[in-house]
């Protein structure tokens, strides 16, 4: 029963996308678009809820099931089915995807109202939801990879939504290519598994891996590293993170859904899903954790200097995913998923509010042309404050619990954990600082010079309602797992986390970390207040020239883009040019030309002997006689 329902969940958004995509060249009525676009996802969400409660009502051991449509391919011992897996992990993801997705798509009905290609937007959003669902529901690595790539495609389409804008087109391409790199990592990992285990089903792989691959060997490490290449590309981890800030070229709801709440956390999902493999690969896991920590720190520093409201949020997303990846690398799978959940709420919230602000300012995104918006947009102010508090880890907002769980449990997870936990704390300070920097500069402080051309207008109910819902979730979402009080998420995910080391922080650590992170958040907020709000923003102006080198370095985003361009892109391009201009005409063409040259030269030679003189012919006879005689003697 819920098996078929799973297919309904998956296919409804696809149906929506197809209906919208093929409804003729003429733009259909917007109402119809809304119904098809939002309705399918709402139904999908409803079905997901049914599945969720059904599973909730079952015994813990009975909460995973696979439903197969047909045998997709059979290659000797390797059998691949088109099959879906319903288990607590995938259902959790589905809930977020369809739930948050529904809110964001509903929000878009108003936000995108004035754009052309209204229909295309919803078709692509629906397609994204379908792909993302496929990613999390797949029962084997092949369909995981397929979903993985299709969300990349959807992301490409939506980043490049304004396809006549060159920057959007370039950003879309960059995102796609880096994601293909990630796909390749996944695919390679799948090759190793297929070759070593002869199966690509989760059940098969996770069942056979401990026995056949062993612990800490080269093969599991290789698999884990390759999988992480995919995860890093999708989840924008250093050094494959450069596409995500550029991806803000897409419409804001896209940023909220794809580049904050769902798709970019797929990497986290992957690592958590493959917990069995990562437990077999301690070194790879450490590497994952370190990459996450490095990412969270780098991204947080960059976020402190961004002047575009969406880019602040983008870097903050990179940083927050860094937390999750770090957690997953340390074996804190529940922590990672917990942070994923709360992050989905508050980051979607922040993006949507940013959208409200941008909408109010008719497309303006620079925060230095904002200021004092509190009086125009009170709801936005309040909800942003909730979001900022949540992300900064101020109790009792959602982010506090999830971040704290990561930092606390990390502290008790060995030496590396301690170091990373400290990095996390530093990150927390930075997080609070840049979030409130944005908050103060947008809503407080002076209005930009010359004031606003049009008075900022608050948005309608379709945009406001999802924002409020998300604000509520950001406030209370953390309560599903409160240290020492309840462990609902731990127990819910237990079935999926076959190799969960189930790290628990000691009470002492819990309390120490809580205190530390509250202090960190307070420090960050205080610093931001001191610089940006305390005296009406004048101090900011005074400090603008301070530390120019560092500032430049951060504004250049740690110089990743030019370095990658020089090191990776340029050589390929130059090689291609060399091949086309150099080798094509002279090398391979030269093979032909050489052949033709030899033949022509020989032909000239033949012609030259052919001078028309009788004597030459007679001479030929004599030469021929000699040749014949020689051949006769030598040939015997």
């Amino acid at each position, binding site marked *: 029963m819920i098996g078929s329902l799973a297919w309904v969940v998956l296919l409804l958004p696809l149906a929506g996308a197809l209906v919208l995509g093929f409804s003729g060249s003429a733009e259909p009525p917007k109402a119809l678009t809304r119904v098809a676009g939002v309705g399918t996802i709402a139904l999908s969400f409803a079905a997901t809820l049914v599945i969720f409660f059904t599973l909730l009502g079952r015994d813990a051991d009975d909460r995973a099931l696979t439903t197969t449509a047909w045998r997709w391919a059979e290659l000797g011992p390797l059998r691949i089915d088109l099959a879906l897996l319903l288990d607590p992990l995938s259902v959790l993801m589905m809930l977020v995807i369809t739930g948050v997705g529904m809110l964001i798509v509903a929000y878009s009905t108003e936000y995108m109202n004035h754009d052309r290609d209204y229909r295309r937007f919803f078709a692509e959003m629906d397609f994204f939801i379908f792909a993302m669902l496929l990613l999390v529901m797949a029962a084997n690595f092949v369909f995981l990879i397929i979903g993985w790539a299709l969300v990349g495609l959807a992301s490409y389409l939506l980043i490049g939504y304004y396809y006549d804008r060159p920057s959007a087109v370039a950003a879309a391409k960059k995102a796609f290519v880096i994601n293909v790199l990630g796909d390749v990592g996944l695919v390679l990992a799948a090759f190793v598994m297929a070759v070593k285990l002869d199966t690509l089903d989760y059940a098969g792989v996770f069942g056979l891996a401990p026995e056949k691959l062993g612990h800490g060997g080269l093969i599991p490490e290789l698999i884990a590293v390759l999988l992480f290449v995919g995860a890093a590309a999708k989840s924008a981890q250093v050094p494959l993170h450069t596409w995500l800030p550029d991806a803000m070229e897409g419409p804001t709801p896209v940023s909220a859904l794809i580049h904050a709440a769902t798709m970019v956390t797929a990497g986290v999902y992957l690592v958590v899903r493959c917990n069995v493999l990562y437990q077999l690969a301690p070194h790879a896991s450490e590497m994952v954790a370190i990459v996450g920590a490095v990412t969270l720190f780098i991204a947080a520093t960059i976020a402190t200097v961004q002047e575009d409201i969406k880019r602040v949020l983008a870097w903050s997303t990179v940083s927050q995913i860094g937390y999750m990846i770090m957690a997953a690398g340390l074996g804190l799978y529940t922590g990672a998923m917990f942070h994923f959940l709360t992050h989905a709420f508050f980051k979607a919230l922040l993006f949507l509010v940013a959208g409200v602000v941008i909408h109010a300012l008719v497309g303006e995104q620079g925060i230095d042309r904002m200021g004092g918006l509190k009086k125009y947009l009170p709801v936005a102010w309040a909800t942003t404050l909730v979001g900022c508090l949540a992300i900064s880890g101020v109790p009792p907002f959602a982010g506090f619990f999830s971040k704290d769980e990561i930092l606390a449990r990390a502290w008790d997870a060995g030496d590396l954990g301690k170091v990373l936990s400290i990095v996390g704390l530093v990150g927390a300070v930075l997080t609070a600082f840049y979030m409130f920097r944005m908050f103060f500069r947008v809503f407080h402080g002076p209005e930009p010079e010359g004031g606003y051309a049009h008075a900022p207008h608050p948005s309608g109910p379709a945009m406001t309602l999802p924002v409020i819902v998300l604000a509520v979730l950001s406030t209370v979402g953390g309560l599903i797992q409160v240290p020492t009080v309840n462990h609902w998420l731990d127990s819910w995910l237990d079935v999926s986390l076959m190799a969960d080391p189930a790290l628990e922080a000691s009470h002492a650590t819990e309390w120490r970390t809580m205190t530390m992170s509250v202090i960190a958040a307070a420090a960050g907020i205080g610093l931001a207040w001191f610089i940006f709000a305390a005296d009406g923003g004048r101090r900011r102006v005074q400090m603008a020239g301070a530390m120019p080198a560092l500032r430049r370095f951060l504004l250049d985003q740690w110089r990743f883009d030019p370095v990658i361009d020089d090191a990776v892109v340029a050589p390929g391009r130059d090689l291609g040019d060399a091949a086309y201009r150099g080798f094509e005409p002279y090398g391979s063409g030269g093979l032909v030309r050489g052949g033709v040259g030899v033949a022509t030269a020989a032909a000239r030679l033949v012609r030259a002997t052919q001078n028309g003189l009788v004597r030459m012919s007679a001479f030929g006879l004599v030469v021929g006689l000699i040749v*014949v*005689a020689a051949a006769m003697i030598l*040939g015997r």
Partner: protein
Amino acid sequence: MNIAALPMMILIATAVVALVPSLAPPGRVRHLGPPLVSIVGLVAAAGMSVLLWGDRQYTFYGAFRTDRLTVLMTLIFIASALVTVLMSLREPATVDRRGEYYSLLVAAVVGMVLVAGTGDLIGVFLGIEILSVALYVLCAMEVWRARSLEAGLKYLIVGAVGSALLLYGLTFVFGATGSVSLEEISDIVRVRGLGGEPLLMGGMALVIAGLGFKASAAPFHMWVPDVYEGAPTPITAFMATAVKAAAIVAFLRVFSGALIDVVDDWQMPLAVIAALAIIAGNVGALVQQSFKRMMAYSSIAQAGYLLIGVATGTLLGVRSLLYYLIAYTAMTLGAFILVAIREREVEDGQSIASLAGYGRRSPLHGVVVTVCLFALAGFPPLSGFIGKFMLFGAAVEADLTWLAVVGAVGSAVSVAYYLRPIFVLWGEDPEPGNARTFDPGDGLWVASVLAGLGVVVTSILASPLLDYCREAAQALIAP
């Protein structure tokens, strides 16, 4: 004398009778008489030959033998001559000397038949000389055209040297064995074990040179492009097919027939000149602007392919060679017919450029020549392919794989020049100057159709034809 020599007798009579209408006053008889007499005579001889298909018969005290090989070759010669007659109906060269022209043509066939059926070395030489002398004259027939005259004279001088080499070689063979009879020579060579005998080897070298010259193998080929270009086109076609066939059959009679027991002595030189011919012909043809001259080089290369069959010295080789000879005759005639047409129609008719767009204007000739050129290039499933394939097979079987490879590479090169006229025929637009100025005559239509049919029929009926070829080859090699 018995019936065995009847076809040759008919041909001799035809040659004589063809002169008679010239005595008539100018008019239809004088104009159409000689070709008609020739056609009737040739057809009669062909019919007679067909009746003779069977076991070997001797005549002239063994000097002439009619076996299946003789018959098959006679038919090839006659077919080539018939098409030549049709091509010549409006040939400028025949104006005012029609009797002589057709008489000489038939006389040349007589020489060829003599070569094919000869029982001794004298017949080889005599036959070759009869056809050569006739052709010297035919080449120079258009005495008012300097090129024709030049071709005739060059052919005569160089040809005479070639004949002398051949003669000297035959003399040595005679000297080494003490007999002129081919059958006796065969016995003597086998019984006495003359392999490696210097006199015999010298003789064979000279014979190879002399006959190689007639067959236009390299490096004895230098006269070929000049003479082929200068001679009247029907005569060129006749030389490229029948004369070459006569030289090849002389090779067969002397080497594969009489000297088969010293095959080790003559295999390598033959293979070498075959390879050289393939290379020189194919390479030389690449840069030609004149279609006629290109076909001359092509015929050099084709001689090389034919010689592969001789060089193998095996039944399979001979049989493949015979089949390829039939196919080659049809294809080459088809190509030369187009030259004849174009040179009568337009000023610059021998050049490839003059063919521009001709295929669209005259699809029949276009298709025929296209098929012929594809066949020459060895595209399957046409007969040229089947023949080449079998020749390569024979070469591989005789441990001459390198020769097959040379042949294969040569064929690949040859595609480049065979396709050039085809492209011009179909792929380019006609130039306004290429309009037709002179009616080439109906004979060419018939000839064209015959040649095209020849290629198609040899392709489709490959199996029965190959059967006949095997029987003919057995007649040569088996006692």
